[in-house]
């Protein structure tokens, strides 16, 4: 609510920020030598923001620990790929192939949502870490099927993945080819940037609206105290399932965009590590706080890319030769950074005011307060 109410006051900043977002790809592609690879990283960062916001509904709002979140991303990506590549052309009826872009996205969202419900319905009564490990198992199962469903029927094309995925086309434009507007050459990376930015903004708006709704409050209530939420007449099972389904839907949309951006997909992109990355975006940024989660997603997805470019020159400068494999070193630094950030700021880099209050040692928890008050009461009786 605060965010929306304060918008008029911050309108100027917001407009400036939007303009910055619009010109950002041009600044990047002309400002750096490896501009277009940075731009790709930026596109990926936007996708990760969408994923992190989806997981944030599940973990941040409803407090359900999901380790298999990337499975929904995979489901979205594979659904998009199968509908928009020649891979299944021989098997599927022709009216199913190459649906309009928006229809594809909606189908992917629905399929992922159904997967979310299928996983959630039997498992959501599990608590905490048990749910975590079951979702982890689910993520693995999805990945194993992706890798192996190339026989007896070649559905996923196994480890090679699916190629030749058609780029999105709408209003007569093909996003896979450069387009010239107003004398400016828009490369596909630029076009995708705007496309993903649009969906990203959409998901942010949806997240905010959900958060400030009756359902958002029910999610937080369940996270805070499930028994009390029950006693307030919340159908906790259905409401949790809804969180799962929403998270899965977000994941499915991001997956579809990912497939359309890449043009090919393989099981490699959907390993457990990716689930863990998305989870760390949510936690490092600040669970349940939309700006924090966005920040977390940007940092976690961009840092390894930046490190990739920084490490080799740095090694050359310091030691004079290539001592360690840069890929290894950058992951090592990344892992260490995760530990350090959590040790210094366990509540995340940009937590909501609420979370900060929760962790401030000066604030008494209810139990403590109860004790104090009991003592007060005794004193009064004397």
């Amino acid at each position: 609510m605060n965010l929306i109410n304060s918008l008029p006051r911050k309108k100027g900043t917001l407009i400036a920020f939007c303009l910055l977002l619009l010109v950002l790809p041009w600044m990047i592609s002309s400002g750096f030598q490896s501009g277009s690879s940075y731009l790709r990283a930026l596109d990926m960062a936007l996708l990760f923001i969408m994923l992190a916001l989806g997981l944030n509904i599940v973990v941040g709002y409803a407090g359900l620990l999901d380790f298999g979140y990337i499975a929904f991303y995979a489901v979205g990506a594979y659904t998009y790929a199968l509908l928009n590549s020649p891979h299944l052309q021989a098997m599927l009826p022709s009216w199913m192939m190459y649906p309009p872009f928006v229809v594809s996205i909606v189908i992917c969202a629905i399929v992922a949502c159904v997967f979310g419900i299928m996983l959630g319905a039997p498992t959501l009564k599990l608590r905490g870490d048990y749910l975590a490990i079951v979702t982890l198992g689910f993520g693995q199962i999805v990945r194993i099927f992706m890798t192996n469903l190339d026989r007896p029927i070649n559905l996923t094309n196994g480890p090679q993945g699916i190629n030749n995925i058609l780029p999105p086309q709408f209003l007569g434009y093909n996003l896979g080819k450069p387009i010239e507007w107003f004398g400016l050459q828009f490369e596909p990376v630029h076009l995708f940037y705007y496309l993903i930015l649009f969906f990203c903004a959409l998901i942010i708006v949806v997240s905010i609206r959900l958060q400030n709704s009756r359902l958002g409050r029910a999610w937080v209530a369940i996270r805070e105290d499930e028994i009390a939420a029950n006693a307030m007449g919340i159908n906790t099972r259905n409401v949790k399932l809804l969180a799962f389904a929403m998270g899965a839907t977000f994941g499915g949309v991001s997956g579809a965009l990912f497939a359309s951006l890449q043009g090919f997909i393989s099981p490699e992109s959907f390993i457990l590590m990716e689930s863990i990355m998305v989870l760390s975006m949510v936690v490092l940024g600040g669970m349940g706080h939309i700006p924090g989660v966005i920040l977390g997603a940007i940092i976690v997805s961009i840092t390894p890319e930046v490190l990739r470019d920084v490490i080799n020159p740095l090694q050359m400068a310091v030691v004079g030769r290539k001592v360690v494999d840069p890929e290894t070193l950058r992951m090592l630094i990344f892992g260490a950074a995760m530990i350090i950030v959590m040790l210094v700021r366990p509540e995340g880099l940009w937590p909501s005011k609420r979370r900060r209050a929760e962790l401030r040692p000066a604030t008494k928890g209810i139990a403590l307060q109860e004790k104090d008050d009991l003592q007060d009461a005794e004193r009064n009786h004397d």
Partner: protein
Amino acid sequence: MTKVLLEISGIHKRFGGLHALNDVALTINQGEIYGLIGPNGAGKTTLFNVLTGLYQPDEGKFTFNGKDLFCQKPYIVVGSGIARTFQNIRLFANMSALENVMVGRHVRTKASVFGAIFRPPQVKNEEAAIRARAMELLEYVGIPHHAEELACNLSYGDQRRLEIARALATDPQLLALDEPAAGMNPKETEDLKELMQKIRNDGVTILLIEHDVKLMMGLCDRIAVLDYGKKIAEGRPEEVKSNPRVIEAYLGVAPE
């Protein structure tokens, strides 16, 4: 002729070998304050959890307002008009006081996911009504100035009040309070008593567990006494007070 609001009979609840509730029957009439007392471990809270749907009884009958609530899920029970508070306060600690009460409106509102995302006028109106009603209830229990504070930062007495406001937000016909005066000083207890009388005068029936016998005697219309999972007495406070079985249960010896 008083109208029976809640009626249970033959309720049994076992936890492994422990027979926590043994053939308990009671009726609560519309508009009364009904007290439930008994020594520690007598099964008061278990009965409370059965009545509010958190525990499923093993056998028995449970009707409320003409509706069969035996073994129903809590959200059905709350929807039928029974709301509760907890002995060891269970607020949503990191939500504001206002938000806590707004959660209580959940069961009386119906905006769906699509409503939340697209915000049509009726959802906007509903949201505004939730907020207005929640604010009204905070005023009703006397803590409107704490609306924006986190529940965990309220004083103990105010937390108790907030829990009552949250329960009232579900528009109950029966409000079940589990030891609301525990840990309060005499002044706070007196204020609480007034609040409960006000709630009753506004047409909500109250079921009350409390250890403060003085409070119970002065407040309740009828009292039931539980001991070892059985109801050993029921009646007006003065009848219960002089019942030899009650005295035995509390003092451990039968009076000569």
